[in-house]
């Protein structure tokens, strides 16, 4: 499973300078996403997975700051690009589908207008009329019924699923090379979720796009992705292809997480639950961040941060159980 | 020993509450503007209470023998704010004016606020026809700018300080109904209210224990700001001839009287007006600071800062 690297993240650190102290939301992660694959970044609330996605687009709201790192997209470092060139990439080469379609659309403008402005912004001198016709075509492509009517609707007149379809149509408007989907179905129902995920996969195939899926839902990962990275408190703890990860998880956190989700097709008498809570991301203890909740913790875990090592081909884990010291 | 034990228990139980109060206090004394507001508003209250006792001269009686030589004196050590056309000490008159303004504000707000809270609670909690009736009446009052309605009311009652108070109180309650009702509508949907209903608590208990305490924050802020606004409106009414009548040393009235001698005898207008401004400024600064202090998010932020500072 190796091919051309489309996106490479190197030693990315994003810190939020809040009143409570410095929150190290993303604290030194490395990632490679290959062209054409669908890659998942998985983790629980507050682990920093969405921050990674935002950092790729260099859109970290204050008080956050990208402290260090480089993000190569097709060989260009996005973090050192001038703002104007970056703007040309956002929404065109790299598109983004956000979690909550209801708040992503401006309530005061029609869907058609908002899709059109995305097109006009990127495709040089395009007439609004042409953009509007193209928007209509896109709406049909994302299977919105009665697209001619819907294009004139305001966001509040559409259901959650429909709004997400509108957002998706915006994201594919400029034929992106990389599609970042940040919890695209969290706000939606199960059946709608399935429809939307199917649609995203279909469009991915059609446009030959790479997908970076950010989610907390391991089910979605199992169903739709090729490779996975698991994040815990600002760090990546394990990277593997999906089959390997679900069959042979190595990191204690991944293991616990997989045992904690109920599988509807299996009979489980008792779910495993990871003891304790996710600690506050301020003033993290030294060493491995999962140590306080880990049942295999050793002395070294408290002292030193485990390095990321390749246990078997293309299966990386950051845990002292597998590292030699 | 026993007493100590009780005290100890009390402290244990109220640790969180005390910490909250302490935080509020630190938050309140944090910015210089907040302190200025606190000092101005508190000294206004104190002067309102003790003003007449510490005034160096009688603020109302005219000394007819010395009237001519004392008439319209500029500020001096003897008369820091100068004297008026009857030779009365303006400093004493302004000092005693504080009590009148304080009284107006207290009377007006202690009628308007409870009325507004009760009506707002009822309208928001019960909804339906009751809500409809209360809100329509409120809306009618809000269809007029407050001051003009106050002018009409106090003209109907006849010009006096009491009728001005009644008039202001009559136009002052509707915003409170609006604010409280809005809050209640929001809080009513909270799950903790549903949980209280599931426990079988009666509506009165739910209203006063669960809804009202959570609805009070904007009311407190509004009330503080209104302390200043009421004083301003009362002064304006007196200025145009409604409200306080001579020889009452009401501030707005003093400014109106002093206009006849302006600008030569500038102190006559300047000091009473300054008193109004500073008083209203104090309450507005305090209200502005309270808005932050009563916002739990702001307090949390402060709490973290304090902890980090240590």
């Amino acid at each position, binding site marked *: 499973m190796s091919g051309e690297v489309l996106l490479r993240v190197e030693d990315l650190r994003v810190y939020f300078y809040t009143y409570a102290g410095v929150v190290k939301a993303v604290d030194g992660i490395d990632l490679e996403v290959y062209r054409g694959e669908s890659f998942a970044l998985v983790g629980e609330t507050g682990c920093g997975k969405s921050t990674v996605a935002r950092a790729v687009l260099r859109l970290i*709201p204050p008080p956050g700051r990208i402290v260090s790192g480089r993000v190569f997209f097709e060989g260009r470092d996005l973090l050192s690009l001038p703002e104007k060139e970056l703007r040309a990439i956002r929404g065109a080469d790299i598109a983004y589908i956000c979690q909550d379609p209801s708040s*992503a659309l401006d309530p005061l403008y029609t869907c058609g207008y908002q899709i059109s402005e995305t097109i006009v912004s990127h495709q040089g001198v395009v007439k609004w009329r042409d953009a509007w016709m193209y928007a209509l075509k896109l709406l049909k492509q994302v299977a919105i019924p009665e697209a001619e009517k819907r294009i004139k609707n305001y966001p509040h007149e559409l259901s959650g699923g429909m709004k997400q379809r509108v957002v998706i149509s915006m994201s594919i408007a400029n034929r992106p090379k990389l599609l970042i989907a940040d919890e695209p179905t969290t706000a939606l129902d199960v059946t709608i979720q399935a429809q939307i995920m199917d649609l995203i996969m279909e469009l991915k195939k059609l446009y030959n796009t790479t997908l970076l899926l950010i989610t907390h839902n391991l089910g979605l990962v199992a169903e739709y992705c090729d490779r996975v990275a698991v994040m815990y408190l600002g760090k990546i703890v394990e990277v593997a292809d999906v089959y390997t990860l679900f069959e042979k998880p190595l990191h204690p956190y991944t293991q616990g997480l997989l045992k904690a989700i109920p599988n509807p097709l299996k009979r489980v008498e008792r779910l495993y639950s990871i003891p304790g809570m996710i600690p506050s991301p301020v003033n993290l203890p030294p060493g491995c961040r999962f140590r306080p909740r880990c049942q295999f913790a050793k002395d070294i875990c408290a002292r030193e941060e485990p390095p990321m090592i390749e246990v078997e081909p293309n299966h990386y884990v950051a845990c002292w159980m597998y590292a030699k010291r | 020993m026993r007493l100590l034990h009780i005290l100890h228990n009390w402290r244990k139980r109220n640790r969180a509450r005390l910490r909250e109060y302490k935080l509020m206090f630190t938050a309140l004394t944090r910015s210089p503007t907040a302190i200025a507001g606190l000092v101005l508003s508190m000294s206004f209250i104190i002067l309102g209470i003790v003003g007449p006792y510490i005034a160096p001269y009688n603020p109302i009686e005219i000394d007819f023998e010395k009237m001519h030589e004392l008439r319209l004196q500029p500020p001096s050590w003897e008369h820091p704010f100068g004297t008026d056309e009857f030779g009365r000490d303006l400093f004493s008159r302004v000092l005693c004016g504080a009590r009148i303004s304080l009284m107006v504000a207290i009377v007006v707000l202690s009628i308007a606020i409870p009325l507004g809270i009760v009506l707002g609670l009822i309208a928001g909690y019960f909804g339906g026809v009751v809500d409809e009736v209360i809100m329509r009446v409120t809306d009618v009052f809000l269809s*007029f700018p407050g001051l*003009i309605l106050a002018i009409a009311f106090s*003209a109907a009652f006849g010009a006096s300080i009491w009728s001005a108070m009644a008039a202001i109180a009559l136009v002052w309650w509707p915003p409170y109904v609006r604010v409280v009702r809005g809050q209640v509508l929001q809080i009513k949907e909270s799950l903790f209210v549903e949980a209280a209903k599931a426990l079988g608590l009666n509506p009165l208990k739910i209203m006063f224990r669960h809804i009202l305490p959570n609805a009070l924050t904007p009311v407190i802020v509004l009330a503080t700001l209104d302390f200043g606004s009421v004083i301003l409106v009362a002064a304006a009414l007196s200025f*145009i001839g409604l409200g306080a009548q001579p020889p009452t040393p009401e501030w707005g009235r003093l400014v109106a009287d002093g206009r006849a001698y302006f600008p030569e005898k500038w102190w006559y207008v300047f000091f009473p007006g300054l008193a109004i401004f500073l008083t209203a400024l104090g309450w507005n600064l305090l209200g502005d600071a309270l808005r932050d202090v009563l916002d739990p998010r702001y307090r949390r932020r402060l709490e973290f800062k304090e902890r980090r500072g240590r």
Partner: protein
Amino acid sequence: MGELKYYLIRRLLTFIPTIIGVTLLTFLIARVIPANPAVLWAGGIKAKPEVVQLLIKKYHLDKPPHIQYFYYLKDIFTGHWGISPVTHRPVIADIATYFPATAELALFSLFVTIFIGIPLGVISALKKDTWIDHVVRIIAISGASMPVFWLGIILQWIFYYSLGLLPATGRGIPPRITYTGLYLLDSLLCGDFEAFRSNLQHIILPGFTLAYPCIGLVARITRSSVLDVLSADFIDYARIRGLKPSFVFRHVFRNASIPIITILGLLFGSLLCGAVITETVFSWPGLGTYTVAAISNIDYPAIMGVTLIIGLVYVTVNLIVDILYAIIDPRIRL
């Protein structure tokens, strides 16, 4: 657009009960609250008994309240707003004479408020927590604490008595032709620049005095609504989509304008009211000066007339604001 039409009809329908409410309240103040309304309407205790009797007949004051109210409504809509016992002229004629001056002053102040307040608010939102932001906050708080009559006097002191830059009282010379009664506008329309200059000089002090409390308020509202919109997800998403800055700005502007328009509607009411006080200080020949004269002469019909007209204007302004609101925000139309 069907929805908008439907909303407009509905909003106009609710306008009727509001107007009834407004007249009902003025009726209560005019006829029910006073102990002896006839005497009050005749000009107070000094009124002659035969005049009082005449008024009882004329206003049907001997009838039960609901009948009185019926006649009151009829009189209002036929333009019989009572006769002033002081000027012996119909109140409505007096109001027609004085209203344009007040409208001019209030509108001028509104423009001052908009052109100073909104930019100040935008600046302090963009420069949040810097010294500019603090200065704007101080302006806002001091504006809310300012007794306008006192501010007016102080400004007269500085700009007229001390510096001699601007006139302290009265209105400028009337333009050659008056169309609207708003002298500034009229003098521009008929090209009478001398009148324009004189009117501008005269309106600056009272206009600014009246606007001062509102400038800070508008600046604060603008600041918070711009900040709200800037932190909204859809602005964020507009950036993620790589929209041109001018497109992003369009989203910010339109969304932030909603609360600003609301507050401007409310402000117009308080400007009309504030004009009553400000006019007194500057001897501006408008409704305010008229009202204060009425107060000292116990001219009750005049006071009630002014109350009614201000109420009606205010309600109408709010109607316009609501309609504007629905045009901007499609969610309201439902």
